[in-house]
């Protein structure tokens, strides 16, 4: 098995290429089978690999060939497989398979069925390359590959202008981070002479001391890349807009896998980050700030997918917090549980949107509890896990993060409290969604029901979102062990109770109506604050005025070719003179004569004056 791990990314890639080349000639059923089966086989192979790994705990390093060889720089097409890779691969292929299956029903009526699965399979292949890469250059290849697939899939319904705009925004904003990351790779290579992750980290530990400047710069550049990909402040603005794509795409790319690539990158290069404690603090602060900002924003949204998008940003913020405080395995654990429950929520919202004539506004839904029971239960479980209610998967992972954050000296308790506030908000907004959409009176009747291809993935993900917290992820060999100390019991109790308080608040506000917040919401301050949060803290507005508009202005100016204007001026002058002179060519003889006489008189006068002067 260990010699054939290259098959896992290859199979979805082959399927993608086949669909691209022959998609138009295949029948819809064939396309569906090919698209789903390729990821299914990859998932099966990953499962076999996992079973083997559980038995012998053997790290696999497989070098297929040398990619290029230039002056001692020889990155290989080589894979590295350990516990962390296994977790990521399981999430990608497992959740990916379920989402592919869901897509077959969701996209059934779409005329570009083959194109859809071609992109989706290519995404899975690229994502697998990203997590299996042995060196940072191959990782970067996968990194850009998923970026391209994200762009293609966000703009999948390119017939609408807004979707194309969202796709470009997603691509360009992440590109900003990627550029910084590329600089980071160059810096690491020039300093350490290799990009192979294991060798590089080893070399770094010998070359640098903890707290040196160069690893700090390198780490910060890598963080920039991670921030762009994982939609953290200040590069998070693309993710809510990326919801323009089909909902299963949002589930796979913009919730479960691609957006967590940044978390993976930092976890994978944690050896470097340990050399730069400042960079880790930066990561933690970015994480917690983003988390709170996105949670407040999610509280005000009315579009079901935008709520989930902001909640994704918020949850990835928790993962960043975990990485920043050195709780590596907790971060990866939250990545995995988040993939389960967020994919579940997104697929659930996809089912609602599918059955409700593409309705996105939660206030136009309502009363869906009895009409769509499967979806209702998936949302209940998903939201419970998202809110980290006890015994759900999200509880275990988020609890670990918060407790480890608390133990950090100095800023620890502060981070913990901010995290708790985030958890409270998470509980409120996720159950606001549940109460508004599934309870109350029905505003829109579903026109169809979910078929088995939608129900099965939802049920499996429900199961995973419930029990995912009991999984032991095999990363103890990958990350340095935490000291194992536990904070005081009251800290734990507070952490557990906060989400429950949030759910109760949501219940009283949005369901029973016993808690009236109308006065608060309708006050001047409440209104402007709500509007501010609704717009995502005005960051889009800010960027629009700070970068987009000036850039457009500049582009518009250059579109007029200012340098050409100089030559244009010469032309214009010539034309003006020509115009004046051609007016004189009136064809009227009398005018010619008159002007000749006038000229003659002028010449004679001048000549007479001059001769007087000479004489």
């Amino acid at each position, binding site marked *: 098995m260990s010699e054939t791990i290259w098959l896992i990314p290859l199979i979805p890639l082959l399927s993608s290429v086949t669909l691209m080349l022959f998609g138009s000639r295949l029948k819809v059923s064939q396309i569906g089978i090919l698209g789903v089966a390729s990821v299914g086989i990859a998932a099966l192979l990953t499962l076999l690999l996992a079973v083997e790994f559980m038995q012998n705990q053997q790290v696999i390093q497989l070098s297929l060939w040398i990619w290029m060889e230039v002056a001692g720089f020889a990155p290989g097409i080589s894979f590295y497989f350990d516990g962390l890779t296994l977790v990521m691969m399981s999430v990608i292929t497992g959740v990916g398979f379920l989402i592919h299956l869901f897509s077959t029903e969701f996209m059934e009526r779409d005329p570009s069925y083959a194109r859809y699965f071609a992109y989706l399979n290519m995404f899975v292949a690229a994502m697998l390359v990203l997590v299996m890469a042995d060196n940072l250059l191959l990782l970067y290849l996968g990194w850009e590959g998923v970026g391209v697939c994200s762009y293609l899939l966000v703009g999948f319904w390119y017939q609408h202008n807004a979707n194309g705009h969202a796709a470009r925004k997603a691509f360009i904003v992440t590109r900003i981070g990627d550029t910084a990351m590329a600089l980071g790779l160059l810096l690491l290579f020039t300093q350490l002479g290799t990009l192979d992750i294991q060798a590089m980290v080893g070399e770094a530990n010998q070359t640098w001391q903890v707290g040196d400047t160069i690893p700090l710069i390198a780490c910060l550049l890598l963080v920039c890349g991670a921030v762009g990909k994982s939609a953290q402040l200040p590069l998070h603005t693309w993710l809510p807009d990326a919801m323009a794509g089909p909902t299963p795409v949002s589930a796979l790319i913009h919730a479960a896998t691609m957006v967590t690539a940044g978390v993976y990158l930092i976890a994978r290069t944690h050896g470097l980050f340990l050399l730069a404690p400042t960079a880790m603090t930066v990561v933690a602060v970015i994480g917690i700030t983003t988390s709170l900002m996105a949670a407040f924003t999610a509280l005000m949204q009315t579009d079901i997918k935008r709520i989930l998008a902001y909640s994704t940003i918020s949850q990835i913020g928790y993962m960043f917090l975990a990485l920043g405080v050195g709780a590596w395995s907790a971060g990866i654990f939250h990545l995995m549980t988040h993939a389960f429950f967020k994919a579940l929520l997104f697929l659930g919202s996809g089912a609602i949107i599918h059955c409700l004539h593409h309705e996105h506004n939660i206030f136009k839904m309502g009363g869906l509890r009895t009409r769509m029971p499967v979806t209702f239960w998936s949302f209940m479980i998903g939201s419970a896990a998202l809110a980290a209610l006890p015994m759900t998967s999200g509880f275990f992972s988020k609890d670990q993060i918060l407790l480890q954050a608390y133990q950090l000296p100095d800023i620890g308790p502060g981070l913990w409290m901010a995290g708790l506030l985030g958890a409270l908000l998470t509980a409120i907004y996720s159950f606001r969604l549940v109460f508004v959409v599934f309870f109350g009176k029905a505003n829109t009747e579903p026109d169809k029901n979910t078929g088995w291809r939608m129900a099965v993935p939802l049920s499996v993900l429900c199961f995973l979102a419930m029990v995912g917290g009991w999984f032991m992820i095999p990363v103890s060999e990958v990350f340095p062990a935490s000291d194992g100390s536990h904070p005081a019991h009251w800290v734990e109790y507070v952490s557990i109770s906060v989400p429950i308080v949030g759910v109760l608040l949501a219940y009283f506000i949005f369901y029973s109506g016993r808690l009236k917040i109308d006065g608060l919401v309708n006050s001047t301050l409440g209104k402007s604050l709500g509007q501010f949060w609704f717009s995502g803290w005005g960051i889009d507005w800010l960027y629009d005025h700070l970068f987009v508009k000036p850039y457009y202005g500049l582009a518009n100016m250059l579109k007029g070719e200012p340098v050409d204007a100089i030559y244009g001026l010469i032309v214009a002058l010539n034309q003006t003179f020509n115009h004046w002179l051609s007016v004189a060519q009136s*064809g009227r003889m*009398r005018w010619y004569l008159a002007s000749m*006489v006038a000229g003659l008189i002028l010449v004679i006068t001048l000549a007479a004056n001059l001769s007087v002067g000479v004489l």
Partner: protein
Amino acid sequence: MDGLNIPLNHILLVSSLLFAIGMLGLMIRRNIIFILMSLEVMLNAAALAFVAAGAHWGQPDGQVVFMLILTVAAAEVAVGLGLVLQVQKRFKTLDMDHANRMQG
């Protein structure tokens, strides 16, 4: 020298007066026949100046040039009247302001 002794200045004055009248006619008139006539007046004004100058200095050149001018005037009238006919044929008018198609 017998006979009428008119000072050169006076003759030149008459000559330039004639020239000015011709030129004014050329500028003001629109009918091509009158334009040609004004042209004749101008030519004759010049011829008068030559004759007067020749008489003043007792040289034959003035009269020679006068003969030349007569010839030129005759030729000019021949060509000019031909043009007049063409203009009348093409534009159905002798008004030169209407014959300004060259305007560009």
